[in-house]
């Protein structure tokens, strides 16, 4: 028994999913499906690729072409799929560790190429699948099982990283602000080029317990109360910025898309001597 949206786009036989109580992965996955539904995409063309980690289990639940690859490599597999068949609507589901640690190189290069792939980052600031180790987005001083004395690393801003590397659409919101998330995902898919949408997410089981963040509800409230639109944030006096996080659309430009350019190259060589 499920909603029309779930029964239309999910492999219901594989539900309920494996995610912990209060994990926001389900919220973000549903938001993606809602965006796909609102855009009226052809299910047979939608291809969802993931790496390894909690969020990367999402494709197994989705009734599209789905590919669960190796750790960090989703964007590289996805690049092959998209170039080989540009008619596919390629969407990558990934986590903060998957996309910015082991897969960081693939992220910046997919962005640089401006290949028409939409990447949804489920950023819960922790390695959940392996039990709560700190990731490249774990805040400084936060705790993880491999940062038992507090994290001395500085975190990445994945959205700004993608924007700087050449993504033509880069936006961040949270798993609390779901309508905004759906809107951003739709814009990302519609953007002809590389898009990255970061969903600030919650992991009550590992991040939350370790850092005494409270229940899933408390963590959702934190997202609601501390994420501020980038334009409003910029106007705040410095002392009001402390402890606040930014969300919003960080980049939205138009540039030539990689597979289009390749097809043009093929077209230009037609009739020429091999």
């Amino acid at each position, binding site marked *: 028994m499920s909603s029309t949206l779930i029964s239309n786009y999910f492999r219901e036989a594989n539900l309920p999913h494996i995610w912990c109580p209060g994990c926001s992965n389900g919220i973000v996955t549903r938001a993606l499906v809602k965006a796909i539904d609102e855009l009226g995409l052809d299910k*047979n063309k939608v291809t969802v690729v993931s790496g390894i980690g909690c969020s990367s289990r999402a494709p197994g639940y989705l*009734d599209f072409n789905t590919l669960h690859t*190796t750790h960090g490599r989703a964007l590289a597999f996805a*690049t092959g*799929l998209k170039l080989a068949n540009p008619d596919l609507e390629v969407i990558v589901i990934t986590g903060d560790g998957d996309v910015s640690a082991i897969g960081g190189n693939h992220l910046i290069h997919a962005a640089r190429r401006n290949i028409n792939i939409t990447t949804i980052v489920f950023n819960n600031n922790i390695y959940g699948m392996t039990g709560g180790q700190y990731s490249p987005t774990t805040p400084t001083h936060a705790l993880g099982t491999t940062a038992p004395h507090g994290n001395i690393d500085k975190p990445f801003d994945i959205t700004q990283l993608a924007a700087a590397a050449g993504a033509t659409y880069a936006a961040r919101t949270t798993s609390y602000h779901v309508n905004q998330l759906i809107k951003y995902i739709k814009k990302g898919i519609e953007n002809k080029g590389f898009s990255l949408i970061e969903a600030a997410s919650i992991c009550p089981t590992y991040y939350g317990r370790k850092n005494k963040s409270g229940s899933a509800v408390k963590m959702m409230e934190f997202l609601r109360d501390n994420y501020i639109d980038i334009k409003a944030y910029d106007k705040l006096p410095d002392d009001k910025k402390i402890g606040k996080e930014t969300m919003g659309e960080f980049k939205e430009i138009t540039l030539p898309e990689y597979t289009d350019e390749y097809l043009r*190259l093929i077209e230009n060589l037609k009739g020429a001597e091999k």
Partner: protein
Amino acid sequence: MSKNIKLMQGNEACIEAALMVGMRFYAGYPITPSTELAELSAEKLPYYGGKFIQMEDEIAGIAAAIGGSLAGLKSMTATSGPGFSLKQENIGYAMIAEVPLVIVNVQRGGPSTGLPTSPAQGDIMQAKWGTHGDHPVIALSPESVPETFELTIRAFNLAEKYRTPVMLLTDEIVGHMREKIEIPAIEEIEIFNRLKPIEGKEYLPYKIEEGDIVPRMASYGEGYRYHVTGLFHDETGFPSNSSENAELMLNHLMSKVEDNLDDIITYEEYMIEDAEFLIVAYGSTSRTARSAVKILRQEGIKVGMFRPITIWPSPEKRLREISKNIKNILVAEMNLGQYVYEIQRIVKSNSEVYHIGRANGEVLMPSEIVTKVKEVL
């Protein structure tokens, strides 16, 4: 019709053959001495409507090639020692997900950066055991430019037929030397294309239809909407943790190769009819070994050569049979002793097994093999 005779490098012959057998996707990363494979693919593929992409690293090269294959194109990547090491995890992925793919390794001196411009045969055991876990491996090793052409065709056909990555283990000598080659007409080439789902029948992506060796393969985007994962999975393609299922799957992965050895394995026997002494050599070293056989024969020594062309799976049955009549076997290879262990395992107590090899970037000379044979005798 006039014959199409050319003077070509091994790496050139590889791409020539790949294009003829239908390779339409290449993803890789530049590495000596395999770079010509990428350069020629970049130049030629667009004329065929095919796609070339230079990825950001070796791992991405094989990952994108697997993606290309899932989208329905015959795909290839190429590399050398350090890149072969980096690709190992995704080689395992292609094996468990049963994705057809050709991986060319133009071997160079190692370990590590080693001797980038010198030949070696040091990745023989890595080809077999480099990726973790149990898995079947098909690896072919050409000794010449024409054979590089022939084995590239074979590599694609085996990859498509058995839905598995196939390795072409050449080396810097075979990759870079120029030889005369007669390019066959396209209609003379046997081409095997992966079997597609039976229309109108329910499609389970990892179910093997009666009479088939491997599951039929739909391309992404054709409407089948199936799941591919590197986890153990059942016929549906979805992950399964059950040990019974894992065993079934592993049995299938192993047996699709082991039950078809006669189709997969090829080898050459050179002057072995009356031989009392056998040299085993493969790839470019077999050229040295062949010369040594000729020299020794002129001196009246009854020596022959056995050359595995399919390195993995090894030509075990035939070599064991031959070894019954052979007292001494010398394995010649450009490493400090790798395939020799496989030969020892195969011949057991039938023959004494000796080794000659080096890994300093210098090829073995016929005279060295001759001397070694005489030493043993």
